[in-house]
C-alpha cells in the first residue's frame, strides 16, 4: 500500500531529474562563457581603438611636417608622377619616404622616438616632475619594454587631383604588439 502510493505520487509530481539539471547548467555555463568571451573581445577592440587613435595623430603629425616644407624643397619634390610609396619602403638617395615612431612609458618617463627621413632619431622624454628633454642621435635607441612601434610611409603625387597641386598621403601601421585586427591609418592632404 505504502509503496504503491509512493510510485503514484512520484509519477504525478516529480521534480527535475539529474540529467535535466545538468542540461540546464550546461546551457547556463555556455551563456556565461560567451559573456566572458565578449568581455575579452571588448578589451581587444578597446586597445585597438587606442592604438588607432595614436596612429591617426602620428599620421597628421607627418602631414603637418611635410606641409611646412617650401614648394621647392627636395623633401617634397616629385620628379615623375609620384615619389615614395605607401605599400613599400622607398628611398631616393639619402632621402627616405618612411620612418618609425616608438612610444613607451617605462621607468617613470614617457618617451617618443621619431626617426626622420635622414636616419636621425629624435627622442622626447617627459617625466612627472615637469622635465622634458629632446635629444637627437644618429643611432637607434635601445628598444624599451611596453613599446608601441609605428611605421609610417608616405607618397607624394604630382598633379593629383588637379594640375598644379601635390597630394601627399601618409600611411601608418602599428608593427607591434600583434592584436586580432591590424591597426592601420591613412590620410591625405593636397598642397601646392
Amino acid at each position: 500500500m505504502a509503496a504503491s502510493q509512493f510510485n503514484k505520487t512520484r509519477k504525478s509530481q516529480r521534480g527535475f531529474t539529474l540529467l535535466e539539471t545538468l542540461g540546464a547548467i550546461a546551457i547556463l555555463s555556455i551563456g556565461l562563457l560567451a559573456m566572458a568571451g565578449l568581455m575579452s573581445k571588448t578589451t581587444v577592440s578597446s586597445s585597438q581603438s587606442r592604438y588607432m587613435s595614436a596612429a591617426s595623430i602620428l599620421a597628421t603629425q607627418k602631414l603637418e611636417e611635410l606641409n611646412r616644407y617650401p614648394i621647392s624643397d627636395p623633401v617634397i619634390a616629385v620628379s615623375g608622377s609620384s615619389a615614395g610609396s605607401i605599400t613599400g619602403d622607398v628611398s631616393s638617395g639619402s632621402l627616405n619616404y618612411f620612418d618609425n615612431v616608438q612610444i613607451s612609458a617605462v621607468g617613470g618617463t614617457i618617451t617618443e622616438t621619431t626617426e626622420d627621413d635622414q636616419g636621425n632619431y629624435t627622442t622626447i622624454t617627459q617625466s612627472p616632475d615637469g622635465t622634458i628633454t629632446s635629444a637627437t642621435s644618429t643611432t637607434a635607441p635601445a628598444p624599451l619594454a611596453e613599446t608601441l612601434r609605428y611605421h609610417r610611409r608616405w607618397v607624394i603625387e604630382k598633379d593629383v587631383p588637379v594640375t598644379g597641386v601635390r597630394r601627399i598621403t601618409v600611411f601608418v601601421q602599428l608593427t607591434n604588439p600583434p592584436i586580432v585586427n591590424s591597426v592601420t591609418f591613412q590620410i591625405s592632404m593636397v598642397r601646392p
Partner: protein
Amino acid sequence: MKNFSTGRLPQSRRLESGFTLLELMVSTAVFLVIGAAAFSLFSSHAPLFTRQQNISGLNINLRNAVTQMELDVVNAGNGYYPGADIASWPVGLTVNNQQPSTTCYNATAHTYSSTCFDTMNIIGVDGSIPPTHPNPPGNSCGATDTSSILFVDPPPSTEYSGSPSQFASLFHSGDQLLIIKSDGSQMATTTLTQDGSLSGAKVRLQHNPTGASTTDPLGITTFFANSGSADTQNKLGNTFCQSDWVLKLSYTTYYVDATDPTNPKLMRQQSTGTTDVVAEQIIGFKVGASLWSGTVSGDTFTFQNYNYNSYDPSQVRSLIVSLIGRTTPNRTGDLTYKNSFDNGNYQIQSLSVVINPRNLSMNDH
C-alpha cells in the same frame, strides 16, 4: 498529538518527493564548480574591462583637448591687417616653460601643482574692432613708455559704420593693445587701465606705460625689453606716430589649473573673459617651440627654457604640445595596479602633437 504527527510524515513525503539528497548534492556540486569558474573568469576580467573603459574615456578627453588646441593654434596670428606691411608678424604664439622641479609633484600622494605645467598664449587681432592710428596731441609722435594716455582716431566710415563714441565704447579696461610701426619694425604692447572715452574727435585710451612686464602679461615684448642693447633688431618701440597702427588683441591662454592638486585641469582662458575646462586629470602639459632658423630643415623643436624673456616670440613658427592625462585615481577596479610613469593607481596616456600656425609658418616659404 505526537502519534498524529508521526503518522502523517511518511504520507506527505510520499506525496511530494522531488530530488533525492544525492541528486541535489551532485547537481549543486556541478553548479558550484562551473559557477565558480565562470565567476573567477568574470572577476579577473572586470578590472581589465574597467581599465579599458577608463582609458577609452581618457583617450577621448585627450583627443578633444588636442583638437581644441589645434583649432586655436592654427589660427594664431590671425586678423593681421593687410594695409600694414609687417615684415615679420610679431604676435602669434608665446610660450612660458616652467622650470622642472621635483617639488611640483608629490610622488606618494600623486598630486601635481601648477609649477609642473607650461603656459601657452595664442595671440591674434580682435577682428571685431578695426585697426586705428595713433593721433597724439599736436599731430606729432607720442611716447608710449612715458605717457599713459594714447589718443587714437576713430576709423573711417568705410571701415566702421558706428559713431566715434560707439567706437570708444569698444575699448575696455583690461584690454590688451598692440601698437606697431607702419613698417612692422617696432612694436609695443600695453594694457588699458580705463574704458575708452571720447575726447573731442579722438578716442582717449588710458594705459600703463609700455615696456614694463605689468603691461605685457602675454610676453609679447618681454624679450625685447629685457635684452636691451642685445636686441640688435631693436623691436621694442616707444614712439608711435600717425601712420602707425593700434590693434586690439584677442588671445587664448592654455594653462593648467592645479588649485585642486588631486585634479589638475587644462584650462582655456579667452580675452573675452570666459574660462573653460578643456580636460580634467591632466598631469603633463609641456609646450615646445620651433623658431625660424632661416632654413626649414634647421627647424628643430626644443623645450629649452622658453620663458618670456629668453626667446624672440616673433620667430616662433611651429609648436609641439605634449599632453599626459590620467584616469581618475583609485578607480581602476584593481587596487594593486600601478602605472609605469608615476606609479599611481590609474592609467595614463600621452599624446603629442605638432601644430603649424598657418599665419606664421607659411609666410617664410
